[in-house]
């Protein structure tokens, strides 16, 4: 059911069993998964059902590092959260994403892909894609669209499914409304999670409305599910008992902010007929979803060359909005592409060739200095705003360049075509890398409290009854968009909370 914080009595104390802060993908899934249990669940959501400029302005903050979107543009403060503008790309993290890799400092999750698999299947249903099967062979058969036969020690094809995309706030509003044991309080901005005097438990969540009301929610357990920028903001701002912030005894809250670097990374000459009819073009209306293949550097390549996860999607170059086709360097590169097409027809295979753009979505290396802290400015509710300092490092740059070379080797070895590498040609290439609105890593998961903010159950180290949901807990990011994994982790957390309360 729904309520409104603006209608709560001023200075009221409300009691429940589980208090969830935030009703984005994670918060809504928690609410639905806990529906029908004996638990009384309150969800405190800052926004309403629709975008409200005044509420959205509470997301303003600073960005001081690598160029990033305005913080109030990169997320949505409303019921449904940032699913209000996601693009629907779905894929689980791969097993290697959970491993500790010797060449990636601070990599490794305390859980494995096997631990999450049972929850990924349910996540697939929440985002309304097809079957929980992401194997390339399966989708080749299902779509009838071939993938390139590439050397598997260099590059593989991985498949994404596409959510329509589901706006969680719309799709699940009625189910939440009908939930007998879940109440969502709209327009309820949590400004602090208050610790007990010993700091070992959360006693209450303090909420405020833009109309000036203040109230508190007391619960046996609390879950903060407000995204990778707002989670550290809230924990750091909650410093009445622990001056460094909640869960921050080892100076980790807010650190390791990661997004997926997105950029046009290469041009390729490829046979037009093979490409347009292939799995690399989005195939619609297959098994109730859409699917598309992307190029991904293989595990053997990553281990041999010590690179990060890397993916690249294929589009005709004229369709790539990130490429300035009038720029002299671009025109020169495309001109030589036509000459290369002649060579390819002569030596490899006949037929019309076309020039394609390869667009990268890559893993960012864990970077302790890439972080969210508190700005000096305060929002209308008196809470310090967030300050983002996104940093990319040498491992990111070298990994991307090496991965593009792997693409060149693979497409050449398969006698498909050639690659023009932007990282090698553009000295300021890394400045082109943008984020994807994926805010990850700022309350990372690790068994050791000196190396992580939460444990394998997403419980905050040192605080018995506080949990975190969402991509802030990711220690590493893979290349796949985070939403499916967010939903899987939220489902897993709901089961854990239910078991702990039983």
């Amino acid at each position, binding site marked *: 059911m729904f309520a409104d914080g603006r209608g709560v009595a001023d200075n009221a104390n409300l009691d429940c069993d589980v208090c969830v802060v935030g009703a984005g993908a994670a918060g809504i899934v928690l609410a639905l998964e806990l529906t029908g249990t004996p638990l009384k669940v309150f969800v405190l959501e800052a926004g309403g059902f629709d975008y409200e400029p005044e509420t959205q302005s509470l997301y303003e903050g600073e960005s001081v590092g690598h160029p990033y979107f305005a913080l109030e543009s990169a997320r949505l403060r409303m019921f449904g959260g940032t699913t209000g503008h996601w693009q629907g790309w779905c894929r689980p993290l791969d097993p290697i994403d959970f491993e500790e890799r010797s060449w990636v400092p601070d990599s490794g999750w305390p859980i494995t892909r096997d631990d999450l698999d049972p929850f990924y299947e349910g996540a697939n249903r929440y985002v309304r894609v097809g079957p929980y099967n992401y194997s390339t062979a399966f989708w080749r058969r299902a779509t009838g669209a071939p993938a390139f036969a590439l*050397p598997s020690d*260099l590059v593989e094809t991985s498949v994404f499914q596409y959510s329509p995309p589901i706006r969680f706030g719309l799709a699940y509003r009625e189910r939440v409304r009908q939930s007998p044991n879940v109440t969502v309080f709209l327009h309820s901005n949590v400004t602090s999670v208050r610790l007990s005097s010993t700091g070992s438990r959360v006693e209450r969540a303090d909420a405020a409305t833009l109309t000036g009301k203040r109230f508190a929610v007391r619960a046996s357990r609390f879950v903060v599910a407000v995204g990778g920028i707002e989670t550290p903001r809230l924990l750091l701002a909650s410093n009445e008992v622990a001056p460094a912030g909640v869960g921050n005894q080892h100076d980790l809250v807010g650190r390791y902010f990661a997004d997926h670097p997105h950029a046009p990374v290469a041009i390729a000459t490829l046979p037009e007929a093979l490409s347009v009819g292939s799995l690399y073009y989005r195939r619609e209306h297959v098994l109730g979803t859409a699917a598309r293949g992307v190029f991904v550097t293989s595990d053997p390549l990553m281990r041999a060359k010590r690179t990060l996860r890397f993916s690249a999607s294929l589009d005709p170059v004229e369709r790539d909005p990130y490429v300035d086709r009038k720029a002299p*360097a671009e025109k*020169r*590169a495309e001109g*030589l*592409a*036509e*000459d*290369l*097409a*002649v*060579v390819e*027809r*002569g*030596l*490899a295979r*006949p*037929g019309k060739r076309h020039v394609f753009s390869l667009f990268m979505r890559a893993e960012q290396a864990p970077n302790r200095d890439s972080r969210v802290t508190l700005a000096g400015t305060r929002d209308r509710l008196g809470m310090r705003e967030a300050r983002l300092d996104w940093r990319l490092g040498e491992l990111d740059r070298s990994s991307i360049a090496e991965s593009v*070379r792997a693409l*060149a*080797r*693979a*497409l*050449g*070895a*398969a*006698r498909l075509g*050639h*690659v*023009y*590498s932007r990282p*090698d*040609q553009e000295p300021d290439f890394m400045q082109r890398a943008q984020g994807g609105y994926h805010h990850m890593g700022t309350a990372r998961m690790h068994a050791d409290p000196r190396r992580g903010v939460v444990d394998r159950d997403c419980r905050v180290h040192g605080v018995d009854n506080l949990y975190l949901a969402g991509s802030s807990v990711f220690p590493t990011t893979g290349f796949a968009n985070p939403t499916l994994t967010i939903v899987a982790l939220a489902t897993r957390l709901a089961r854990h909370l239910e078991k702990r309360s039983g």
Partner: protein
Amino acid sequence: MTRLTRRSFLALLGLAGAGGGAAAARFLLDGEGAPKWSGAAGTSAALFDDPEAARRLGEAYLRVHGAENDRRRLVGLLSRSEREWRRALQDQDPSALRVLAGRRAARELAAGELVEVDGWWVAPTEARLCALLAAKDAA
């Protein structure tokens, strides 16, 4: 320079790539109707439906690898004392050359032997075959 016989020249035209014999003929002749490339360069030219395009690529390669701007040296680098290669280049057998070159280029690329030509990653063999069309003859 070895001059092509009329018979071998027509044979080369017949083995030219997807561009077709007539188109290839236009590119294979200089302004006075004589073959523009002969010998190993002529064999290389016959691989491509637009040898001028390949020549441009070769020219770009030689701008950076000036030490290879010599046809005899390029033939040496390409054939590497392999008899099949020598025969294909010197006996002007483009179809055999196509098979040899395609295979070797694929191996080079798979092994990470890439050379950069104006930002594009290509196999050394591809670049050198094109360079044959742009290179100087030894004095």
